[in-house]
């Protein structure tokens, strides 16, 4: 049982004028035995957060703490407590290594006979036939590969598991079983899980707490049902409204607003609230709301129980700020 804390984590790529802050002052706590879902659009910095947590990239500012220990400094042993499963099951297994060898790599200190037994146990744990240990990844389907990747991550008995878009490369009919497996494993092993996805429905199904990320920052954090039923940040509402729903007709539109709806360049984030150029509540709807352009609302979020980094949080939901 562990707590993973991101404290003001900033990750910068590039140097000088062209540098991009992929993650900029990111705060998030993944509590004991909980699944925190992280949603956001491409370029919001979700995967960079994950890579920073497992030490594949280094924060330029801030700390990542595992039960109070900084995992950024002097990695190796502390780092093994945090494991990650990747999005692309076709790239995450060495094509030249058998399934057993890939999983066994995490058990290097263990004697070879014991290792074989452990590999078999791990394969069973993720719902695969232990006989698959001798197979090469090319014989496995995407869903099976993702299970092997899970088994490899579990081999070092991590206390925190990071799942980065683990179902988005899978066929619809096998996604469900991988999600079920992840939930079962989390319960059995009492791990803390950071579940990253661009798919709101998947995140909602899996997570206890949901964090919404926009341009390198968390803009809203709340318990899953609370966030879904009562989204406070306009960006979260935009995301929820945009998600396609069964049978909800999409009406013709498209030229009424010639504004760029696209995510701004993360190299040049907008001033104040980063969402203000696209925000349906901010200055675009009410020009008097200049505070959105001038003042960064990030600091006010921490004081709220339902954390939303917005000057007008809850406005469109009918609540006064």
């Amino acid at each position: 049982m562990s707590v993973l804390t991101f404290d003001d984590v900033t990750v910068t790529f590039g140097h000088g004028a062209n540098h991009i802050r992929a993650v900029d002052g990111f705060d998030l706590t993944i509590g004991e035995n909980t699944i925190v879902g992280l949603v956001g659009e491409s370029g919001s910095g979700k995967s960079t957060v994950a890579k920073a947590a497992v030490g594949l990239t280094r924060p330029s500012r801030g700390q990542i703490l595992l039960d109070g220990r900084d995992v950024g400094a002097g990695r190796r042993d502390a780092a093994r407590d945090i494991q990650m499963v990747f999005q692309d099951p076709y790239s995450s297994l060495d094509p030249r290594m058998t399934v057993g060898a890939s999983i066994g790599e995490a058990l290097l200190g263990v004697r070879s006979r014991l290792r074989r037994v452990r590999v078999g146990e791990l394969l069973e744990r993720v719902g695969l036939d232990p006989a698959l240990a001798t197979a090469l990844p090319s014989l496995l389907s995407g869903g099976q590969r993702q299970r092997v990747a899970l088994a490899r991550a579990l081999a070092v008995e991590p206390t925190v598991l990071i799942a980065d878009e683990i179902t988005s490369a899978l066929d619809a009919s096998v996604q469900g079983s991988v999600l079920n497996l992840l939930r079962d494993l989390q319960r059995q092993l009492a791990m803390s899980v950071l579940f990253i996805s661009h798919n709101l429905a998947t995140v909602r199904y899996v997570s206890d707490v949901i964090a919404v990320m926009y341009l390198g920052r968390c803009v809203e954090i709340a318990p899953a049902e609370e966030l879904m039923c009562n989204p406070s940040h306009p960006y979260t509402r935009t995301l929820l409204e945009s998600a396609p729903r069964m049978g909800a007709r999409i009406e013709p539109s498209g030229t009424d607003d010639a504004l760029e709806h696209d995510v701004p360049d993360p190299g040049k984030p907008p001033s104040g609230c980063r969402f203000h150029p696209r925000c349906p509540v901010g200055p675009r709807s009410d020009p008097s709301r200049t505070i959105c352009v001038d003042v960064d609302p990030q600091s006010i979020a921490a004081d709220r129980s339902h954390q939303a980094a917005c000057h007008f949080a809850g406005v469109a939901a009918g609540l006064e700020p």
Partner: protein
Amino acid sequence: MTTEMTVVAAQVSNNSVPRNVSLRRLLRTPLGIAALVADIALLLLAILAPIIWGRSADAYDTAGINLPASSAHTFGTDGLGRDLLLRVLVATRFSLELALGATLIGVFFGLLLGSLPIVTGARVGRFIVAAFNVLVAFPGLILAIFFSSIFGIGATGAMLALGVASAPVFARLTHTLSAGVAGRDFVSAARMVGAGRMRIIVRHILPNIGDTLIVNVAMGAGGMLLAFAGLSFLGLGVQPPSFDWGRMLQDGLQQIYINPMAALGPGLAIVLAGLALNLTGEAAAQLAGRRVSTGRRRWLPSGLAKTETGTNGPWASTDRPVLVVENLTVRFPGPDGHPIMPVRGVSFEIAAGECVGIVGESGSGKSLSALAIAQLIQAPGDVEAGRLLFDGEDLLRLSRGRLRRHLATSMAMVFQDPMSSLNPVRRIGSQLAEVAVEHGGLSRRAAAARAVDRLGQVGVPAPRRRARQYPYEFSGGMRQRAMIAMGLMLSPTLLIADEPTTALDVTVQKQVLELIAKVRAEQNMAVLLISHDLAVVSAMCDRILVMYAGQIVESISVATLLAGPRHPYTRALLAAVPDLQTDRCVPLATIPGRPPPPADFGTGCAFAPRCSYATDRCSRTPEPLSIDGDTVACWHPRQGAKGPPRAVEPGAVSSTIARTS
């Protein structure tokens, strides 16, 4: 779960080692045979020639000095009367030894240098990479001459010099290849579980770059042979009394006017041996890349594109169809020579202005069906259809030119990745205009104006400025808009959109879908929307075709989809994908097993192995069944949404069921 495992177990036993198969196939190609014969000849010569002819090649014959080529001495004799042909043959071993030795030295140091940056980390690595990049910039032979003055003149010195001089090239190659592998997730995963750098290099990186490296080494050895000849020719290589081909070439040149064969002979040997090594490299490349072609296709594409069909299929829709597809089949040659059919007898119609969706998982044949309709399947693929009518024309009968023109003017296509459909080095505006100039007969100026107009119509801001930009300056959503604008340059009656929003973020996805809906309403354009996402299709379309294993298993209205589809596959798919209303307290419904690959579609209902309602009947292909305007290809159709799905009782609902023949 159990089904999934049995499938794999079966595959494990079926798949013998694939490498042997391709090696055997390679040896049936002319290249493979040539490489094998050349290698064996070279090897035999290298081993046997010095044993058999070693002594006679060194035998002086003062009576016959510098003889020209004759029947007794095919290549003539040298200044000491030794037979040149024998000497060329005997020199094979030494020449090859030196060339291969130098190659091995180069590869050894190259691998060491090339993988060093991974061990040392980024900062020191950058210097090492810069160092061998500078060395690569020097011509290899100049480096070799430089090094041979260090290592001393003679065979060993030359070998070392050439080896070291070629190291930067191999280092560069190793570094480039390993950088590609090092960026892949499995290396990150190994780092996460605590594998050290050396282990990562030895276990993960080297095995994965081996294929390409071996190819280049084989090619490099051929070049090395030539380089050696060059060094010996300059007098820096082998010194008498030793001799290799290069040395003999140099000696031979002195008497080229007396006996041209004295120089041509060793030259010929160098060329032939170099050729043999290059052939080996080529063959290795084919083996590594599995680019082996067996030449002729084993199956014959039927000359007649028309196949037998009954009357108008049961998948028919409303009046005045803009597209009629009947019994569409796509065939590709399979890996073992047997044709595979990723699309098998697909039939449907689209009415003018109608929006029809095709949903299915990867490999279901949905995209191939669309490509086949648009006549975009390329050889060796083969398309057959009973009927293929589009916008009043029979696509199977049109001449090539008229077909192109007809499709270009009346059919628009949007793909998942707009970047690959746009030419990266041309301005967006001119790419759009080209369509109207080529097929619409517009002048350049009018076409350019129309391009700006259409870009504005699809919501690209500042279209005049944007038209002058290049694709990379557009965001993903804007590119997709540009693709739709390109489709609208002429007046299409059908837009085929293949996963148009899969690569886009949800907020952008909604805008692009709204745009497609708008364009459809304005132009009364029919839309064929292909997606893996049932929600997207249900939000856009009037009718939905569900594809599985290359066939349409169900054609239903959106209302039926929401109320509860009839095919067990569609139902299972709906239950397996969570939406924003899914109950979080219960596990997601799962479908055992996985979709079959096109080679294993088999006979009967393809979904039967994964279906909980399957019976013996399902081993026969189900006839399409019409129920209340929907069509389902299943022996055990379901009904209703909530609770345990119940079977349609044939007696109870017989009035609504009409089995079509």
